[in-house]
């Protein structure tokens, strides 16, 4: 993984000093609350419902065991012994005291971490594929480009006060595991007819109140032009993005208002001025950064192991886990292991200090000391020999980290909701709990198979409900929590927004309604169809009729424009 040199370290150290000074000025009354707000926000520090929340960047989700141990330490020393991994591959601490935040940042800087641009109207942490570097379907490892973007965007003098926040995702694989098309800028590594690898540039995707699947504005961009093209897009956005209404300020609105053709024309015109400037990337620099993302020395004989097959045959619980929580590795005899942070009764994405230390230990022992945060709020150990899987599973089980539910109904994406967030209209975590209690039969869950439930406590859509196979959106009616369901969304290469099922439902009915939807699926599915496939084949009507038997009114599709 990327290692800081003196320059990188100086920047994060100076950031700590700067924020310490800003916080001291605030606490001394020299800065007003209004003046301090944008400064703390640029350091990922929000003031939430009960306490401040600190969001820490995990660039493209990649952590070393040393860094994970530091997160455990921080949760112990400054917080309530747990941390929350977010859908943006970041980590959040929910209870730090404001005056300790400079110390937390100093602790983070000691392990090459920071909270720079984890909030504010700036370029946020670049996200990527959790299986980057080991996936079989990968054309090229996207992480070097994420790191190049991270450096270019860090304290970018021109783009630190954009109309709104700005999120970039990069994927190098055929199967999109990074939700590329619902980002402000999404980049797919692709090959052109001449066999060269470059980027397909998607702009203006996003969720929130006005969801859009982003269009491609340049199907092939040479790598050397990556930064100049990003700069051209950001410049057009910074000049012309709306600033009068924060709900219309994301780049997706600008792209949609101008139309893809006109937006593209403006970007290309801007680009023509800066394309051959100092922004042009040296191949030498690309190679330098690539040099940090090399493969470990894999064991050539790893595939000769037979213990894995035997354990799968003889142990049902292990085989359930192996079926769901392992991901095919490009090297024979290795697997990527998904560590589930979705155990029943636990808020999705939460890990305790003890669990984090435990995972760090296992990463050192079994996976070359690396851990990846997924945008589904789980963790990945990317390089595990199959001969080690059974003992790893046993050790994960000791700390409630081996729930065999990856990709299943209970592997929900969930925002912090009303329990923590100042914006939320309704709870998410209690609904996750309700669903977990209702669907506690592992065989049933495995029978239902792949199902992505995504849940947001308000229309800001941090839980990505629009792109859930089943999306759940918390709304408030007469001061009571209700939930609006959508069906058929996807954040992958076949990205599309879910259709609205019907009127919102009461809090206590959510799990029962999901149960009805699953009954319809089980009755109608053919062969190996997933829930999403059946939905796409049969449409919304049978589902709607089951949930709203008397009021099967025709509803306009929620957001398919």
């Amino acid at each position, binding site marked *: 993984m990327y290692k800081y*040199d003196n*320059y990188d370290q*100086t*920047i994060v150290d*100076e*950031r700590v*000093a*700067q924020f310490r000074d*800003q916080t001291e000025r605030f606490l001394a009354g020299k800065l007003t609350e209004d*003046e301090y707000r*944008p*400064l703390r926000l640029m350091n990922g520090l929000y003031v939430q419902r009960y306490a401040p929340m600190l969001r820490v960047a995990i660039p493209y989700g990649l952590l070393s065991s040393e860094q994970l141990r530091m997160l455990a330490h921080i949760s112990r020393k400054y917080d309530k012994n747990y941390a929350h991994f977010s859908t943006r591959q970041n980590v959040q601490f929910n209870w730090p005291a404001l005056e300790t935040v400079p110390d937390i940042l100093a602790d983070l800087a000691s392990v090459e971490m920071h909270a720079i641009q984890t909030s504010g*109207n700036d370029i946020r942490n670049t996200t990527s594929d959790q299986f980057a570097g080991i996936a079989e379907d990968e054309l090229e490892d996207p992480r070097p480009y994420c790191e190049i973007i991270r*450096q*270019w965007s*860090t*304290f*970018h*003098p*021109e*783009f*630190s*006060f*954009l*109309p709104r926040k700005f999120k970039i995702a990069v994927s190098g694989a055929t199967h999109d595991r990074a939700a590329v098309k619902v980002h402000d800028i999404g980049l797919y590594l692709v090959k052109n007819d001449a066999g060269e690898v470059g980027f397909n540039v998607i702009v203006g995707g996003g969720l929130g109140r006005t969801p859009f699947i982003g269009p491609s504005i340049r199907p092939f961009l040479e790598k050397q032009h990556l930064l100049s093209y990003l700069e051209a897009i950001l*410049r057009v956005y*910074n*000049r012309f993005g709306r*600033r009068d209404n924060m709900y219309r300020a994301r780049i997706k609105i600008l792209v949609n208002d101008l139309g893809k053709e006109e937006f593209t024309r403006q970007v290309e015109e801007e680009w023509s*001025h*800066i394309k051959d*400037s*100092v*922004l042009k990337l*040296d191949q030498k*620099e690309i190679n*330098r950064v690539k040099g940090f993302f090399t493969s470990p020395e894999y064991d050539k004989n790893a595939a000769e192991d037979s213990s894995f097959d035997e354990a799968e045959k003889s142990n049902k619980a292990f085989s359930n886990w192996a079926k769901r929580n392992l991901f095919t590795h490009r090297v024979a005899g290795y697997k990527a292991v998904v560590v589930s942070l979705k155990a029943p009764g636990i808020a999705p994405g939460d890990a305790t200090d003890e669990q984090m230390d435990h995972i760090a230990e296992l990463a050192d022992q079994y996976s070359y000391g690396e851990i990846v945060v997924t945008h589904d709020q789980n963790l990945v150990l990317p390089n595990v020999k199959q001969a080690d899987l059974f003992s790893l599973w046993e050790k994960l089980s000791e700390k409630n980290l081996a729930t065999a539910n990856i990709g299943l109904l209970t592997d929900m994406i969930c925002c912090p909701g009303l329990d923590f967030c100042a914006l939320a209209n309704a709870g998410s975590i209690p609904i996750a709990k309700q669903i977990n209690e209702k669907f506690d039969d592992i065989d049933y869950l495995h029978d239902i198979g792949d199902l992505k439930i995504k849940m947001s406590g308000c229309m800001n859509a941090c839980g990505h409900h629009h792109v859930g196979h089943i999306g759940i959106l918390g709304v408030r009616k007469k001061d009571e929590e209700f939930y609006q369901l959508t069906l058929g969304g996807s954040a992958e290469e076949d990205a599309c927004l879910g259709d609205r099922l019907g009127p919102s439902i009461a809090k206590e009915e959510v799990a029962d309604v999901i149960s009805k939807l699953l009954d319809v699926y089980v009755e109608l599915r053919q062969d190996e169809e997933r829930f999403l496939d059946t939905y796409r084949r049969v449409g919304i009507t049978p589902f709607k009729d089951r949930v709203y038997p008397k009021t099967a009114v025709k509803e306009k599709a929620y957001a398919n424009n």
Partner: protein
Amino acid sequence: MRIIKDKKISDDDWVIARELDDSAPIPEGNVILPFSYWRANRDELLKQDTAHAVWIDGDIETEELSDDLGQFSIIGLDFPAFKDGRSYTHARMLRDRYNFEGELRAIGDVLRDQMFFMFRCGIDCFQVSEGKDAEDALKSFNDFSVRYQAAADDAVPIYKLR
């Protein structure tokens, strides 16, 4: 007005005409005029043998000034609130695209903690807000000794030095 110019505190006699009707007589002395006033009275103003200065906000595009840049010794860039970042792009366009060599002066809500970014975009003069400690503000230029990107201050990105 109290300013920070080339990282030093000083006073100068320029005043900013925040509002000036296009039909008003040409003001006396060193006045930074609204760009709309310049446009309306361009011919008259050009007859005067004095230094010219205008200010723009985010709604005026730098393209609109490009023909007259040689006339201005100062261009004021307005920062009406910390959130409005359009003037950062204005500064870069004026420096990088139009090679404006006169003074770029940040006016409006100029916050100490944003001066580092403004300076990097090519702004070399800062109006000091009332009640703010200018000495204190000077420190912010030293917040970061290393910058990743090339901008108006650094000719090349840091990676070229690695």
